[in-house]
């Protein structure tokens, strides 16, 4: 069953304004390519801990600390690789039944 509301996605990095902004843009492109209606925000690690997104995306050194924050936590090394991120999102969102 597809999600009946907009998907909330959080792009996370250390400071929350540079690297994560790049990741946010890559994630928006990837989600668009999958036809997913999503809102992507970027933030820093400590602010992220107080949030309740559907999906968290970040580097392994950060997602390890955020494993319980969301049903889907995705680790990426290349923040510019739209196709790689889209492939991970397709697998993980599909497994949650969130893709149409």
């Amino acid at each position, binding site marked *: 069953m597809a999600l009946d509301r907009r998907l909330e996605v959080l792009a996370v*990095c*250390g*400071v929350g*304004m*540079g*690297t994560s*902004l*790049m*990741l946010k*843009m*890559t994630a928006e*492109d990837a989600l668009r390519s999958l036809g997913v209606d999503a809102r992507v925000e970027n933030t820093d*690690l400590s602010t992220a801990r107080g949030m309740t997104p559907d999906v968290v995306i*970040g*580097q*392994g*050194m*950060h997602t390890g600390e955020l494993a319980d924050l969301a049903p889907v936590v995705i680790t990426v*090394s*290349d*923040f*510019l*690789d*739209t196709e790689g991120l889209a492939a991970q999102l397709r697998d993980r969102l599909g497994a949650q039944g969130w893709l149409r």
Partner: protein
Amino acid sequence: MAAVTAVGARDAVAAAGWREAVEATAGILVGLGAATAGYPRACVRVVEEHGPYIVLAKGLALVHARPEDGGLGVGVAAARLAAPVEFGHPDNDPVDLLLGFCTPEPDAHVATLSALARALSAGLDARLRAAGDEAALTALLREVVADA
């Protein structure tokens, strides 16, 4: 937005390790008058505190700190290293190209950085690596900033 973004580049930067590479990149922003003298140290501290996550793709780092760490204006810099350095990143080491930015307030840089992200997705990093000299590096950055 384009008119207020300072742009600068250095080629063949000698750096003995990631700290020197980060300081040299942020130092370009200081030289442009876009950041205070303390900004390079702040950029090093970001990595010390949060890990080498600023290495956001193979061989490429995005050097920055917070606005309150010494951002005076919106600035973008590129540094090409004489020899690559290791950040301790699990997948993206070694790093030979560093981009730096600074911003005076949390949202002032968004248009500039968004343009930089779009350009990187379209292969800016490869074009910066292939650029002939410092002037060519600067010209490539100027093109990107003009789109912001």
